[in-house]
C-alpha cells in the first residue's frame, strides 16, 4: 500500500483530498457555527483564486496585480446570467464564469507573454483600475454602481427544509476548492508544471528544450484566470450583490500579497495567505473594537496591522510563511536524524529556492 501511494501521485493526492473533503464536511456540518462557516467560505473563495495565482506567479513566474479584475469578470458572468435566466443550475454558472474568465485570461496572457517584470505588473495594474469602471458605463447590463442582486442558491430538497442556504453554499465552495486544489496539485507535479517552472527559471533553456514559451505562459494565464473566474462566481453568491465596489484595487493587491506572505509557489501557501486575508481583519477588528478607539482609528487598525504584517513578513520570512515552516521543519528533521547516529539516512536535499 505504502509503495503504491508513493509511486502514484494521482492516487496519493486522491486519498489526501478525499480525506480533506470528508474532514471539511464533518467540520462544516457539526463543528463550526454559522459565523465560522461564513468565514471559512470566504477563505475557500480566496484560496481558489490565490491557488490559480500561485500557479501563474509562483510556478510560472508571471506577476499579476490584476486578479481582482478577473474575479470581477467571473462574478459578473454569474450575476448577469442569473438576471437573464434565474433557473439555470448553479454548476452551469460556475462553468460559464470559468469559461468567460478563461477567455479573458487568454487575451491578457497573449498580451502578457511579451511582457516581463514591471511591464507586466503595470499592464495588469492598469487592468485592475480600468475594469471596475466599466459596469458604471454600461449600467443597463451590469446594474451600474448599485450592482446586481444574486440570490443565495437554495439547498436541494433531500437535505430537509431547515437546511440553511449558507451551509449549502459553504459545502459548494469547499467542494469547489478541494477539486481545484486536487487538479492544480496534479498539474503542478506533472509535465505541465515542470514546463511552467522551466519557463520561469530559464527561458532560454526552456526554448532550447523545445518548449513554446509563449504558449506555456498563455496556458498558465488561462488556468489561473479560470480559477479566478470560479472564485468570482462563488464570491457573487457569497456577497449576494455584485457591484464594482467589491472589486477594488485593494482586492487585486491583497491576492498577490497573500500568495507571497503565504509562501510563493506553494499551494499550501495560497491557503495560509487566504486564511490570513480573512482572519487577520476578524481578529484585529475584534481587538481594535475592544480598545474603545474612535471609529476613524478602530476601522483602520486591521488594515494597518495587515500592512505591518506584510512588511515584517517580507523582512523576516523572505520565502513566506510556508517556506519558513518548511525550513524550520527541515532543520528539526536534520537534528533528529543526526542524533540517531551515523547510520541515519542523509537529510533530504534542500529544495531549490522558490
Amino acid at each position, binding site marked *: 500500500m505504502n509503495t503504491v501511494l508513493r509511486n502514484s501521485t494521482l492516487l496519493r493526492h486522491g486519498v489526501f483530498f478525499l480525506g480533506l473533503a470528508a474532514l471539511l464536511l464533518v467540520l462544516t456540518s457539526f463543528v463550526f457555527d454559522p459565523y465560522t462557516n461564513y468565514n471559512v467560505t470566504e477563505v475557500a473563495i480566496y484560496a481558489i483564486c490565490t491557488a490559480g495565482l500561485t500557479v501563474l506567479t509562483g510556478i510560472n513566474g508571471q*506577476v499579476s496585480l490584476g486578479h481582482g479584475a478577473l474575479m470581477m469578470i467571473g462574478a459578473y458572468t454569474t450575476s448577469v446570467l442569473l438576471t437573464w435566466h434565474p433557473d439555470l443550475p448553479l454548476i452551469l454558472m460556475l462553468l460559464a464564469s470559468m469559461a468567460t474568465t478563461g477567455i479573458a485570461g487568454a487575451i491578457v496572457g497573449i498580451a502578457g507573454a511579451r511582457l516581463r517584470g514591471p511591464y507586466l*505588473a503595470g499592464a495588469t495594474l*492598469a487592468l485592475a483600475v480600468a475594469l471596475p469602471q466599466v459596469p458604471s458605463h454600461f449600467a443597463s447590463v451590469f446594474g451600474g454602481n448599485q450592482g446586481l442582486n444574486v440570490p443565495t442558491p437554495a439547498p436541494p430538497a433531500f437535505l430537509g427544509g431547515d437546511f440553511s442556504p449558507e451551509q449549502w453554499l459553504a459545502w459548494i465552495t469547499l467542494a469547489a476548492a478541494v477539486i481545484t486544489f486536487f487538479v492544480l496539485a496534479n498539474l503542478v507535479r506533472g509535465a505541465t508544471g515542470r514546463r511552467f517552472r522551466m519557463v520561469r527559471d530559464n*527561458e532560454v533553456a526552456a526554448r532550447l528544450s523545445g518548449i513554446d514559451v509563449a504558449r506555456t505562459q498563455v496556458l498558465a494565464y488561462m488556468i489561473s484566470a479560470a480559477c479566478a473566474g470560479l472564485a468570482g462566481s462563488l464570491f457573487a453568491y457569497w456577497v449576494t450583490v455584485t457591484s464594482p465596489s467589491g472589486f477594488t484595487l485593494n482586492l487585486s493587491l491583497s491576492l498577490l500579497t497573500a500568495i507571497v506572505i503565504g509562501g510563493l509557489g506553494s499551494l499550501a501557501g495560497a491557503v495560509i495567505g487566504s486564511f490570513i486575508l480573512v482572519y487577520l481583519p476578524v481578529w484585529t477588528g475584534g481587538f481594535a473594537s475592544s480598545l474603545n478607539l474612535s471609529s476613524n482609528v478602530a476601522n483602520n487598525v486591521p*488594515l494597518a496591522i495587515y*500592512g505591518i504584517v506584510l512588511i515584517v513578513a517580507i523582512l523576516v520570512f523572505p520565502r513566506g510563511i510556508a517556506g519558513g515552516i518548511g525550513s524550520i521543519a527541515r532543520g528539526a528533521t536534520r537534528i533528529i536524524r543526526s542524533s540517531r547516529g551515523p547510520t541515519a539516512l542523509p537529510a533530504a536535499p534542500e529544495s531549490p529556492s522558490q
Partner: protein
Amino acid sequence: MRLFVIYTVDGITNGAVYAAVALALVMIWRATRIINYAQGAMAMFTTYIALIVIRHGAPYWLGFVIALAAGLVIGAATERILVRPVESRPPLNAVILSLGVLILLEAIAPMLFGGQTQSFPTPVSNIDLVAGGTTLDFSPFDLFTVGAVLVAMLLLFLVFQRTTLGLRMRAAAFNPEIARILGIRVGRMLTLGWGLAALLGALAGMLAAPSVYLYPSNMDEVLVFGFTGAIIGGLESPVGAVAGAVGVGLALSYVSGYIGSDLAPLGGFVILIVVLMLRPQGLFSFGTQRQV
C-alpha cells in the same frame, strides 16, 4: 473645436501631474530596480501634512515647502530602513514590501487626519483666465501646475547632469560595484535618490489634491496613470516618462470628454497594451531585448 481645446488643456495639466509621478518612479527604478508602488500613498501623506500646516494659519507656501521636505525625509527613510534589506532579494519581495508600505500609509492617514474627503487650497486662482473679454481655457493654477513640474524637471536635470553629486548618483545607479571602488558611498546615493523621488511625488500630491480632493486613497489612480506613462516611455528614460505621462493625460482627457469619464481608465489600459504590443520595452527604451 472649443471642446477639443478644453480637453487638451485638461490633458496637459493632468499629464504634468502624472509626469511628476512617472519621473519619481523612473528615478527609483533606475537607481534600485524597484517600482515604488507606495509613491502615491507617500504623496497623499505629505499632502495631508501640508493641509494641517495650512489649516493652522500658515501661508500656502510654507505648507508647500514642508510637504516637499517631508517627502524627502519619508522617501529617504523608506529606502534606508525598509528597502535596503530587500534590494538583493527576488524582485517580488520589493513589490510586496512597497505594497505593504502603501497599505500601511493608507491605514494610518485616516487615523491621524480623518477619513473624510477634504478640499485642498490652491496658491493661485483656479478659475479660467479672461483676456480681452474672451475666456481662455486655462486657469492660473493650470499654469502653475505645468510650470512647477517643468521647473522641478529642470532642477533635477541640472543636479544630475551638472553637479558632482548628480554624477555620483548616476554612477551609483549605473554600476554600484565600480562606483564603490571609486569611493562613492553607493548606499547614501540610493537613499538620496529615493528622497528626491519622493520629493517629486510630494509635488505631484500638492498639485493633484485641489482637483482630485484629499482622502487616503486619492493618489491611487494618479499613481497608476503615472506608472502607465512611465512604462509607455520605457521606464529607463526620464524624457520618455514625461512624454508618456503627458500622452496618458491627453488620452484620458479625450476619452473622458468624448466617450465617458467611466471609460477613461480603460482607455489608458488599451493605449498601454497597444504601445507594449508594438514595443514591449516602451517607446524610449534602448535596452537590450531579453527575448532569445
